[in-house]
């Protein structure tokens, strides 16, 4: 019923309605404040979740929206992490400009990479991104004079945020800092995917052959989104450096690229919130399960991943959307929707 009434109101109204904030989104973002009140001992974990969510969001932009597969996205995360770390080690510990530096550095690397990326698809892309990730890891490993090599980068000292807020041991500053950045970049992403550019990205994902046949500038679009995504991943990496005041080779590890892919697929790619939900589940599960058995914590994650891919091809969010989109569910909740003026 909603679709017919919207169709009558004109073609823009329907699309505009899709762009509007839903109540559940507001609830979600309010819930991100809960760790301050409910689990103040877990703020460090919470900031890890926020950083990982941002990293996953950056991958969602290329994988979920433009269909560009990557198994080496940690390259940009790690590049940003080292950029922020090295800047701080050499005497500039101001966090915001440091983060900007990390974002620009990773974005620049992404821009250079994008010329190769835009020419390939599918399996070739997986191999290229994988190889590129390994290359960067080895480069960081051998350039010990710059990166500290296997010992990690020592001597990262951050100045207080905005000159006022120290990065405390409990992760209080770390969490609100990460959360605000996640939220801001989420807003940017949300804007982007609802734009004409975002529509073209979905076109590339859905049918790149047809995009050529309607004269689309697909390669330019791919280069652009890849650069944006790389910059965003770099900011996530920079955040990790700044909030933990250390950088290890792990930021560039293949495992990190694989994990972020798992997180996104688990939560649901191409849904903006998928990476966020995935990051929460993944990191909380790791925290809990590794408490029980530090060696085999990946086992339940593996089971969860298999189950999700088998039964919920759209990830957890995709599954939820299917349930909430069903006729039966719609009938159930329609009375509840009246107050929002959603019902015709």
């Amino acid at each position, binding site marked *: 019923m909603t*679709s017919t009434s*919207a*169709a009558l109101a004109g*073609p*823009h*109204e*329907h*699309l*505009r309605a899709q*762009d509007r904030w839903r109540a559940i989104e507001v609830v979600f973002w309010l819930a991100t404040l809960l760790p301050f009140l409910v689990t103040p001992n877990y703020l460090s974990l919470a900031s890890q979740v926020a950083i990982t969510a941002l990293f996953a969001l950056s991958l969602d932009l290329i994988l979920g929206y433009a269909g560009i597969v990557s198994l080496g996205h940690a390259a940009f995360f790690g590049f940003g992490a080292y950029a922020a770390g090295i800047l701080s080690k050499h005497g500039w510990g101001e966090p915001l400009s440091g983060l900007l530096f990390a974002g620009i550095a990773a974005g620049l690397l992404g821009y250079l990479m994008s010329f190769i990326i835009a020419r390939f698809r599918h399996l070739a892309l997986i191999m290229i991104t994988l190889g590129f990730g390994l290359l960067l890891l080895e480069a960081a490993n051998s350039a010990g004079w710059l990166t500290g090599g296997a010992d990690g980068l020592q001597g990262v000292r951050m100045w207080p945020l905005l000159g006022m807020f120290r990065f405390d041991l409990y992760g209080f500053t770390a969490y609100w800092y990460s959360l605000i950045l996640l939220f801001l970049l989420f807003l940017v992403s949300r*804007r*982007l995917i*609802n*734009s*004409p*550019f*975002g*529509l*073209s990205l*979905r*076109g590339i994902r*859905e*049918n790149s*052959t*047809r995009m*050529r*046949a*309607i*004269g*689309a*500038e*697909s390669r*330019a*679009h791919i280069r*652009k989104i890849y650069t944006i995504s790389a910059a965003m991943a770099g900011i996530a990496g920079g955040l990790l450096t700044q909030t933990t005041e250390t950088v290890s080779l792990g930021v560039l590890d293949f495992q990190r690229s694989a994990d972020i892919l798992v997180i996104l697929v688990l939560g649901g790619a191409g849904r903006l919130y998928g990476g966020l939900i995935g990051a929460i589940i993944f990191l909380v599960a790791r925290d809990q399960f590794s408490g029980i058995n530090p060696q085999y914590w990946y086992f339940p994650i593996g089971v969860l991943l298999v189950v999700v891919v088998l039964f919920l091809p759209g990830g957890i969010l995709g599954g939820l959307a299917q349930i909430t989109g069903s006729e039966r569910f719609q009938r159930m909740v329609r009375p509840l929707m009246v107050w929002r003026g959603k019902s015709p």
Partner: protein
Amino acid sequence: MNQIKTSAPVLSTRGLDKSFGSLVVAKDIEIELPQGVRYALIGPNGAGKTTLINLMTGMLRPDSGQILLGGEDITALDPEARVRRGLIRTFQINSLFPHLTPLEAVTLAVCEREGISRTWWKPVWTYHDALDEAYDILKSLMLAAVCHRQTRELAYGQQRLLEIALALATKPKVLLLDEPAAGVPREESAELFTAITSLSQDITVLFIEHDMNLVFRLASRIIVMVGGRILVEGTPAEISADPRVREVYLGGAAHV
């Protein structure tokens, strides 16, 4: 007819050759399409009809020969550049965006044409002109009622219409339709072709079609291809009277 013949051709090919190894798929193809004409391209299976469309749109490179669009040599241009100059095709097998709605898909094509698809800071719905244009195209092809459904949920005939809608959104000068009614029930295909023939007279249309009733009713001129060569070209009356065409189609009753 004379009037049309004297106007400069919008699309023409000169001595187009293409072969895959020893298999010749196009041999010395010479075509001239004047503006506004509805051309049918017919011939038995494997005659090279789709290959010819692929050559003209740049999906395949000819071994030799030239393709001219509005007098400009476009032989060396890639497919996207040809589309931007107004040479558009549709596909024999649906090639759509399954998870986009028809309105989104056609709007996408309009935005790409207008160069707005580069903007990422403004929502799509603020582009009222692009959306209105997309909606009007869908309406003209009887797709307005389903414009907010996902493409994959559309009936097959509607998807064939969306193929054409996408092509129209690029504002074509020349429209190449590769079996637009393939797989559509006969009663619906007549409707589809009525939509095609009622397109603006500014658009030159070349369509591949196997249903001879439709071809002879709707085409103003017909090109017959056999074995990668053009056998004959002429008005429907000339073609139906041509003994060589009869010979080709003798026994090929499945197509008639």
